[in-house]
């Protein structure tokens, strides 16, 4: 549990640096966490759609060709990380409509 205690401690240190040294508003933290939750949620939607599309592709290729592709090929964490990235980019892109990215 030591690394997780370090993460908790560093989060606390970062909070105090942000508020005391950088002058960031504590009230903005809640909004930032909300944005993170939105990115994660969008990432989960991408993950479900991605896995359904991949499963359809695997089953389709099995039917249409002689080649066997295993559904176990979907058991890979990289597509999940990429889905999260898709969700993050999606959120930034949507936000850039309201406040263009610099």
């Amino acid at each position, binding site marked *: 549990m030591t690394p*997780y205690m370090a993460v908790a401690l560093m989060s606390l240190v970062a909070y105090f640096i942000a508020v005391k040294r950088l002058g960031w508003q504590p009230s903005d933290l809640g909004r930032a966490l*909300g944005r*993170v*939750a*939105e*990115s*994660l*949620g*969008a*990432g*989960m*939607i991408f993950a479900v759609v991605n896995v359904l599309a991949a499963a359809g592709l695997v089953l389709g290729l099995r039917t249409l060709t002689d080649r*066997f592709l*295993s*559904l176990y090929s979907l*058991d890979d964490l990289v597509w999940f990380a990429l889905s999260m990235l898709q969700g993050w980019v*999606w959120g930034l892109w*949507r936000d850039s409509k309201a406040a263009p990215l610099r």
Partner: protein
Amino acid sequence: MPSSMIVRALGLATLALFFLAAFTPLAAFLYEMITVPVHIERADAIVVLAGGGVLPSGQLTDTSLRRTVRGIALYRDGLAPLLVLSSAAGRRSESAARSVLAGKFGVPDTAILASSAGDTTHEEVAALQPLLRARGVRRLILVTDGAHMRRAMGLVRNAGFEVLAAPVAEVEAPTQPEPRLRLLRAALREGLALVYYHIAGYL
């Protein structure tokens, strides 16, 4: 995209699941729900399902090795006169490597049936059915991973055999976050496979 409130709620639910899975026994509880308790008695055969084939070096994969050793141990305990070592189609080398290993542990060639057929568990069981019937097998001990057992048992039972479960433990009650997340992944993967097999009408 749905409204941002729904997306945010989904994100919060994902975060909650992550923390619960990593820092509580939730994953072990979910895994327990899809596994089958060990039930071993004398039978006509011990059937060891395919487990990922062999590595390019010719060695069995970890999964295949664990299952094979479990099958050999059951045979050595005198629980059945026949040891069936299965592998996927085109992977004769897996059943061959398993047979060699069984021989080294003192299982006689006459007690080993090596099968190499099918690409999925469903196809593998369908290919094993006539081979087992021809040997007069009615009751068998099935060896596969704990998470895979429920699905495999359903298929073997539907093929007309009485099945006893000899699962191979993958992970046992992990207490660290990463093994817990791996267990959750295994439970989710097998849960989805069970749903797929039900939809496909195999179970």
